[in-house]
């Protein structure tokens, strides 16, 4: 029965000591829709990247129709009929639908010349066969997200892929677009295709998947047929009922944050184009001595909200206040002048300049203070830099480019810089990404110290342990809206936060 089997797959990331997949067994049957669910970082994407040849397992084997296959690249995957649609589409905006679909496997006329008519004909026949609604000659950049996704799927069909992997296919779609996607998927399985659906959304799993595999902490915790489990059981499987929650640990429980607000968002929204709002009427506030945690599954607005509060992205609606002053759509420059400290989730591209020297990286937010009449005071800069290197035990030559440092040292550089400003408001986003547990503990301590000094902390994190261990108040985002505002008073559990994350509490 099993058509594709992954056996004993293990993948260890040496850079940050993460065991992403640990002895994973996974089995796909013909004509089924198999959902793969789990928290962020549970290992779903790693497993699928291995199947698609983007990564190599340290251990384990893959069998197709009973014989072992070695998938070393997406090209190999294609040879074995395995295709993948990534969460972020990989289409060429200036090409037409047909050109994107045939790209890489063009029908040739006399060896060299692209046969455009034949290409469009082939695309049209796929379109008719499976009921797609895409004009082959339309240019991709003018398409809606739903149409772009159809193009991605048609691309796999054009290549005669038998196994289709879809990574979070519904995260950008509206209700009607999701319905039509699911209709298409059903039709594809009837035509003999097998589909793996990576998703966070339990309602989707229950409505479409024939079977579901739950991953947690790099392991498959079980595979179930439709009807065998319900929403509540699935969410318990995903977040684990056996976990000892450390809610309340280090949290100033019961403390009420009335009155003074350092930072406040009122009805903040972001809309762009035809897709559903990325953020919808977000209201939240941060008081002195409070850690406000914001969480949510990937694609639900966490990153967008991070961009808004740091001033990197303009709003379509709503207001932002700092100590009662309206700072809506201020430039980052103004935000920085107000003294905001901000540790971004993307520390490699946004949080640091890898080609610039360690020293140049450390002074980006306070070089104003080191200059007089526009001339930099090198002695003061050097003493500041060597002080920070000592304080945060960063191992590196201040005059050499940052990319020569180890990942951990780069992380510490970002922290050292952001924590060097005197401020009453700090934004942390995914503060422990890429850190080992000792370094993570250190960061937690820093965050708590800030809270205890009466500063306001806004913490974005997709790691629920982190949220429950640190935050006084927890906001859960789902589909760009606040699905729940929860007080972390000691009774809050990971499971409960999880149900909000999966949209179970607000759906229907």
């Amino acid at each position, binding site marked *: 029965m099993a058509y594709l089997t992954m056996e004993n797959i293990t993948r260890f990331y040496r850079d940050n000591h993460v065991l992403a997949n640990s002895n994973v067994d996974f089995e796909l049957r013909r004509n089924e829709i198999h959902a793969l669910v789990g928290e962020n970082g549970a290992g779903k994407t790693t497993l699928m990247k291995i199947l698609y040849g983007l990564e190599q397992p340290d251990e384990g084997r893959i069998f197709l129709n009973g014989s072992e296959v070695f998938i070393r690249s997406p090209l190999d995957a294609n040879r074995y009929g395995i295709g993948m649609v990534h969460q972020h589409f990989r289409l060429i905006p200036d090409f037409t639908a047909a050109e994107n679909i045939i790209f890489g496997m063009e029908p040739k006329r006399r060896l060299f010349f692209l046969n455009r008519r034949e290409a469009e004909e082939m695309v049209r026949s796929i379109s008719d066969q499976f009921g797609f609604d895409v004009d082959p000659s339309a240019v991709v950049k003018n398409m809606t997200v739903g149409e772009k996704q159809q193009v991605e799927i048609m691309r796999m069909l054009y290549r005669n892929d038998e196994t289709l992997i879809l990574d979070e296919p519904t995260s950008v779609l509206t209700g009607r677009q999701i319905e039509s996607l699911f209709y298409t998927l059903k039709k594809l399985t009837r035509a003999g295709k097998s589909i793996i659906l990576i998703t966070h959304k339990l309602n989707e799993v229950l409505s479409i998947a024939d079977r579901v595999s739950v991953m947690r902490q790099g392991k498959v915790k079980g595979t179930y047929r439709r009807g065998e489990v319900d929403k509540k059981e699935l969410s318990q499987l995903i977040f684990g009922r056996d976990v000892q929650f450390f809610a309340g640990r280090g949290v100033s429980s019961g403390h009420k944050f009335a009155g003074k607000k350092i930072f406040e968002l009122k009805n903040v929204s972001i809309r762009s184009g035809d897709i559903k709002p990325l953020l919808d009427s977000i209201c939240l506030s941060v008081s002195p001595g409070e850690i406000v945690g914001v969480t949510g599954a990937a694609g639900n607005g966490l990153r967008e909200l991070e961009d808004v509060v*740091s001033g*990197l992205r303009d709003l379509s609606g709503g207001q932002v206040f700092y100590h009662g002053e309206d700072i809506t759509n201020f*430039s*980052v*420059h103004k*935000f*920085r*002048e107000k003294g905001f400290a*901000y540790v*971004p989730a993307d520390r490699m*591209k*946004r*949080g*640091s*300049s*890898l*080609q*610039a020297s360690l020293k*140049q990286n450390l*002074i*980006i*937010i306070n*070089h*104003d203070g080191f*200059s007089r009449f*526009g*001339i*930099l005071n*090198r002695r003061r800069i050097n003493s500041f830099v060597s002080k920070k290197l000592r304080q945060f035990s960063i191992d*590196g*030559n201040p005059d*050499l*480019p940052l*990319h*020569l*440092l180890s990942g951990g040292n780069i992380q510490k550089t970002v922290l050292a810089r952001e924590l060097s400003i005197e401020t009453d408001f700090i934004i942390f986003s995914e503060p422990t990404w890429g850190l080992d547990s000792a370094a993570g503990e250190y960061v937690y301590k820093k965050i708590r110290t800030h809270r205890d000094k009466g500063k306001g902390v806004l913490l974005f994190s997709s790691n629920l342990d982190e949220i429950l261990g640190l935050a006084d108040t927890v906001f859960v985002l789902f589909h760009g809206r606040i699905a729940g505002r929860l007080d972390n008073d000691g009774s809050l559990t990971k499971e409960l936060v999880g149900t909000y994350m999966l949209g179970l509490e607000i759906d229907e």
Partner: protein
Amino acid sequence: MNRREKENIIVSFWGVLLVLGASLLFAAVLIFLLSSEPLPAVKYFFTGPFLSRYFFGNMLDAAVPLIFTGLGISLAFKASLFNLGGEGQIYMGALVTTVVCLALPEFNGLAGGLTALAAGSLAAGLLAALSGYLKVKWNVDSMISSFLLSSAVVYGVNFFITGYFKDPSSSLLSTPFIDSRYFLPHLMNPSTLSTSIFFALGGAVIIYFLLYRTRWGYEMTMCGLNPEFARYGGVNVSSYVTMPFFLSGLMHGLGGGFAVLGTYHMSIKGFTSGMGWGGIAVALIAKNNPLGVIPAALFFAYLNAGSKAAMLHTDVTFEVAAVVEAFVFFFITSEVIFSFIRRKRRSLL
């Protein structure tokens, strides 16, 4: 780590030397193939610039405008901007300097000369700044706009030199001579070398200081290396597009102005041609280091003087000399551009 970086620096240093050496070798081979008296031709090519005060001084003088244009290009490069309009900018700077000198007969030498230089460099700076402005305003590709604007300006300047400001008594297509009070003192008679070389050296030091010791230079460098990081750090990124272009144009304008006051004492049709492109090669060899621009410009001037000497003494023609220079330019740019692309690609990953 440290060792790896040191090795990188050593490798790139030898890389530049290798490219320069290969260029010279190639020039020699080419002369051998194309000249009927190859041995003297090669000898003059390599030693010509050192044979007399005249040749040596002229070589140093030829390096002056290249230092200015090289500095201008380096500045823009530091902000990750490609100013391809150097030819038009230096020509414009030269013409405006000449015209201001001609229009101010009653000024004394110093005030008049400074006013003329200021006007010339300002005109060239504004011309370049236009490309930066168009990029900020409408996201026009600044590489293309600077090139196209400059190409048009070259014809405009030609029109004024050969028409409106032409000296009717001269057989050259040129403006009249400027007043001799504006001439910069000569240093190595009978060569054309003048005190303008001190201004060029001073300019390099000032630009070095600006880039590496000021807040402004720091912010601009950060915008060039990773604009997202600069923006995140609170730097007003869009202001570092127009400004670097303006300064880049300013340096080109000064190059043109000093060529007039120090060397030519008038504007002749096409007399700055090649100095703009030369500046790009100089900046590339110098890896955008303002102090590195000085030896790089000298190397380029040496090459130029060598081919002139070979031309004068043997049957090497102007075309052969031009081909040799073109190949050298090709070698240098390919090496540097490849390493530039490699760096870009790595920073994308």
